[in-house]
C-alpha cells in the first residue's frame, strides 16, 4: 500500500509541477498578479508530495519490502540499518527521486527566502524551476518508476553493491546532488532575466548567494567522493579522471567561474552576457553529467546500468533545455551588454582571466572526456584518455590561475596603480619563493622544478589570502574591518592553497611498494618498518573477511597497527578491498591487501602519503569560505514580511 501512495504522490507532484511551471510564467507575461501568486503555493505543494513519495521509498527500504522491485534489487535483510536508508539512492530510480526531491527543496527555499524579490522575477524563477521539475518527474514516471512491484515478492533482496556500503558513500551522492541541482537556481534566474530583458546589479546580488551555496555543496560532494575512492577502491589514489568524476568536476570549474563573474556583475554591472552564459553552461554541464552517468555511454565504475530509453529521454530533455536556453541567449543577450570600461590593471581584468582560465580548464576536461566517443564515431577505434593526458592538460591553465589569484585578490576595482600593490605584495612574493624552495628541502631533503612551482604557488596563495584578514585583525580602532564577503573569499582561497600543498607534496614525495608478504615478514618503506603480524578471518554482518594485522614501527618504536581487509560479500559474491590507513595531519600510512598468492602469502600494497589530508581539508576550507561569504550583510534580508 505504501509504495502505491508513493507512486500516486509522485503523479500529484507532476500535476502541481505543471501548474508551477506554466501559470506563473503566463501570469508574468500578462501581468496577472493572481496567476503569479500561484508560484509559491504550487512549489510548496509539489515539495510536499515529492517528500511523501521519497519518504515512502525510504519506508519500503527500512521495512525490507521486497515486493518492490527496486528494493529487492538493492537491499537485503542483513544489510546494516543506515545502509538500508542510503540504499534508497544507490541506483538510478531512487537517486532520480532524490534529485527531484532536492530540486523541490531548492524551489521551496527560493520561494521562502526571496520575499524581497520583485513578484515578476520570483514568478519567472519558480516557473522555470517548475518546468525543470516537470522534466524530471516525467523521466521518473515514464522510464524509471522506483515503486514498480515485483510479483511474486522476493524472499530476500539482492543486496546493496558492497562498494556503496560505506558511510562516505551514504552522504556523497546527496551532497553532490544538492550542488548539481542547486545550479538550477542560477539557471532559472538567468532564464528569468533573459525573458524580462532586465539584468541589473540587484539581479546579481540575488543570484549570487544561491550559486555559492550550490557550489559549496558540490565542493564537499566532490571532496567526499575523492576521499571515498582513496580508502575504498584500494589503489591509494585520490582522483582518477574517470568520466563520471569529470562529469562532477566540469560543473565545479564553471560554477567557480560563475561565482567570480557574478562578483563583477554585482559590483560593476559588467560581464552580464558572460554571466548568463556561464549560468546556462553550469547547469547544462550538470545535466550532461547526469546523462553520462545514467545512459551508460561511458564505461566507468560509477555508471548505472545501461538502458537506451533512459538515455534517449535524458538526452531529449538535455537538448530541449540547452538549445532552448541558448536560443533565448542568442536573441536576448546582445541587448543586455553594457559598455562600461575598466582599466587594464584592475580586478575586473583578473576576474576575466580567472574566468577564461577556468573555462579553458573545463573545456579541456570536456574534450578529454568526450574524445573516446568522438574518435570511435570517426573511425571505430577504441581509445582511452587517462590521467597522464589530463594531468598535463589541466596544469596548463591551472598554474597561471594560481599565481594570478594572489595578485587579483588585492587589486582594486576599475584601476589599480602599481606602486601600492608592489609594496603590499613584495614580502609575500619573496617569502613564497624562499619558503617554497626551503621547506621541501628541510622536510623531505629534495627539490625539483614542478615541486618548487607547486610549493611556491601554495605558499603564495596562503600568504596572500591571509593578508587581508590579518590586516583587519590588526586594524586601528574605528577602522572598518573585513566584510564577511571578503573574509569568505580569503578563506576559500586559503583552502585552495592548502589543496595545492597537498597535491604537490603527495605527488612528489609519496612512496609505494607492492610486494608479497607472509606472516612475520617486514617491509621497509620511507624509513618505517611494516610487519605483517598475522592474517586472520573476520566475520561482518553480511561479509566474511581476511584481515591482515600490520604493525608499523619507526626505528624500532611502535607507531600504529592497521588492519587492511579483503571482504567477501555473501549475497553479491564480490570481493572488496578495505584499506588499513593510519592517518595523521601530515601523512597517511596506507596498507591494502591485494590477492591471495597461495602458500600463506598475499600481495600487499603499502603507501606513504605525505600531506594527503590537505587535499580534502583544502576542499572543505574552500566550502567553508563559501559559507562565510553568503552570510555577508548585504545578502541577509532586512525586511521581514509578516
Amino acid at each position: 500500500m505504501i509504495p502505491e501512495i508513493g507512486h500516486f504522490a509522485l503523479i500529484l507532484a507532476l500535476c502541481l509541477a505543471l501548474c508551477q511551471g506554466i501559470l506563473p510564467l503566463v501570469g508574468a507575461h500578462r501581468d496577472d498578479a493572481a496567476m503569479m501568486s500561484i508560484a509559491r503555493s504550487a512549489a510548496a505543494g509539489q515539495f510536499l508530495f515529492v517528500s511523501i513519495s521519497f519518504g515512502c521509498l525510504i519506508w519500503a527500504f527500512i521495512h525490507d519490502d521486497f515486493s518492490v522491485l527496486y528494493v529487492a534489487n538493492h537491499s537485503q535483510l542483513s544489510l546494516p540499518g543506515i545502509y538500508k536508508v542510503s540504499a534508497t539512492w544507490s541506483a538510478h530510480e531512487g537517486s532520480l527521486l532524490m534529485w527531484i526531491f532536492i530540486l523541490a527543496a531548492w524551489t521551496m527555499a527560493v520561494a521562502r527566502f526571496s520575499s524581497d524579490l520583485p513578484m515578476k522575477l520570483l514568478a519567472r524563477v519558480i516557473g522555470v524551476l517548475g518546468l525543470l521539475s516537470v522534466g524530471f518527474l516525467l523521466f521518473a514516471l515514464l522510464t524509471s518508476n522506483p515503486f514498480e512491484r515485483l510479483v511474486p515478492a522476493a524472499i530476500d533482496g539482492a543486496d546493496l553493491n558492497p562498494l556503496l556500503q560505506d558511510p562516505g558513500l551514504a552522504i556523497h551522492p546527496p551532497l553532490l546532488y544538492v550542488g548539481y541541482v542547486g545550479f538550477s537556481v542560477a539557471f532559472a534566474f538567468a532564464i528569468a532575466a533573459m525573458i524580462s530583458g532586465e539584468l541589473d546589479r540587484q539581479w546579481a546580488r540575488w543570484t549570487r548567494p544561491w550559486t555559492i551555496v550550490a557550489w559549496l555543496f558540490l565542493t564537499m560532494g566532490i571532496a567526499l567522493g575523492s576521499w571515498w575512492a582513496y580508502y575504498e577502491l584500494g589503489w591509494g589514489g585520490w582522483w582518477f579522471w574517470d568520466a563520471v568524476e569529470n562529469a562532477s568536476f566540469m560543473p565545479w570549474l564553471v560554477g567557480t567561474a560563475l561565482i567570480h563573474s557574478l562578483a563583477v556583475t554585482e559590483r560593476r554591472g559588467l560581464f552580464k552576457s558572460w554571466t548568463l552564459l556561464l549560468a546556462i553552461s553550469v547547469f547544462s554541464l550538470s545535466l550532461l553529467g547526469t546523462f553520462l552517468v545514467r545512459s551508460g555511454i561511458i564505461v566507468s565504475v560509477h555508471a548505472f546500468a545501461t538502458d537506451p530509453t533512459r538515455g534517449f529521454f535524458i538526452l531529449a530533455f538535455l537538448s530541449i533545455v540547452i538549445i532552448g536556453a541558448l536560443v533565448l541567449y542568442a536573441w536576448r543577450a546582445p541587448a543586455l551588454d553594457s559598455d562600461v570600461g575598466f582599466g587594464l590593471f584592475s580586478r575586473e581584468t583578473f576576474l576575466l582571466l580567472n574566468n577564461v582560465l577556468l573555462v579553458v580548464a573545463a573545456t579541456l576536461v570536456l574534450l578529454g572526456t568526450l574524445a573516446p566517443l568522438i574518435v570511435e564515431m570517426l573511425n571505430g577505434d577504441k581509445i582511452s584518455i587517462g590521467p597522464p593526458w589530463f594531468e598535463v592538460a589541466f596544469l596548463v591553465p591551472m598554474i597561471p590561475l594560481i599565481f594570478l589569484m594572489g595578485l587579483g585578490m588585492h587589486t582594486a576595482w576599475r584601476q589599480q596603480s602599481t606602486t601600492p600593490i608592489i609594496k603590499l605584495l613584495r614580502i609575500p612574493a619573496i617569502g613564497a619563493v624562499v619558503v617554497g624552495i626551503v621547506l621541501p628541502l628541510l622536510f623531505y631533503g629534495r627539490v625539483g622544478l614542478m615541486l618548487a612551482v607547486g610549493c611556491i604557488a601554495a605558499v603564495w596563495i596562503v600568504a596572500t589570502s591571509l593578508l587581508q584578514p590579518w590586516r583587519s585583525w590588526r586594524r586601528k580602532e574605528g577602522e572598518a574591518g573585513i566584510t564577511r564577503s571578503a573574509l569568505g573569499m580569503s578563506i576559500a582561497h586559503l583552502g585552495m592553497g592548502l589543496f595545492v600543498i597537498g597535491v604537490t607534496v603527495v605527488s612528489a614525495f609519496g612512496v609505494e611498494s607492492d610486494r608479497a608478504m607472509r606472516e612475520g615478514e617486514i617491509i621497509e618503506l620511507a624509513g618505517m618498518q611494516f610487519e605483517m603480524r598475522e592474517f586472520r578471518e573476520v566475520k561482518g554482518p553480511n561479509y566474511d573477511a581476511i584481515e591482515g594485522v600490520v604493525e608499523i614501527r619507526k626505528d624500532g618504536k611502535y607507531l600504529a597497527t592497521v588492519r587492511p581487509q579483503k571482504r567477501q560479500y555473501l549475497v553479491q559474491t564480490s570481493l572488496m578491498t578495505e584499506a588499513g590507513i593510519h592517518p595523521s595531519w601530515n601523512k597517511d600510512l596506507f596498507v591494502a591487501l591485494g590477492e591471495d598468492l597461495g602458500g600463506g602469502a598475499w600481495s600487499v600494497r603499502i603507501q606513504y602519503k605525505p600531506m594527503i589530508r590537505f587535499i580534502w581539508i583544502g576542499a572543505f576550507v574552500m566550502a567553508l569560505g563559501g559559507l562565510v561569504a553568503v552570510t555577508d550583510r548585504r545578502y541577509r534580508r532586512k525586511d521581514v514580511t509578516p
Partner: protein
Amino acid sequence: MNRFILPLVAAVVLIPILVLGLRSDPTALPSPYIGKPAPEFELPTLKDPAKTIGTANLRGQMSIVNIWATWCVGCRAEHQFLVELSEEGSIPIYGINWRDNRQNALNWLAQLGDPYVASGFDADARVGIDWGAYGAPETFLVNADGIVLYRFTGPLSWPIWEQEFVPLIAAGAGR
C-alpha cells in the same frame, strides 16, 4: 550579434555526438587477435591436473573458448545457456577457468552441469592475460585453423548467440 550565437552552434554540434554515442556499446571491445591465430597456451585440465589442454586441441574444427570463474556473477548468468548449447552439440566448448580455486570450480560444475569438453585451470591468470581477457566471462570463437574470428565480453545468451555467433559459424563452415 554573431558571437552570441556561437554557444548555440557548439551545442548543436555536441548533441549529435551524444546521440551517436548512445547507439554504440561501450562494453564491446575489439580483440587484437581477431583474424589472427589464437595465442598459444597449454594448461593442466581442471578435472585432472596430470592432463593438459591447449591450442593443439582447438585445431581441426570450429570451437569456442569461454573464460569463466566461480566468483563471477556474469558466468553464473550464462552458465545455463552454455549447458544448453553443449546439449545441442553443434560446437565444442573449451573453458579456461580463470583466477579461481580448483575445488570451488569442480563443485560449481558438479552442481550446475559441465558444458565444457575440458576446462584449463588458469589460477595465476597467465593465459587469460595472453588472450587479452578484460573480465570474465569472455568468449572467443576460434575456427578450425586456430584463427580467432570473434570475441564477446559479458554473459552469453541465446539471442546473442543467434545474432553474433551463428552467422560467423555458418560463413566459416561454408568456406
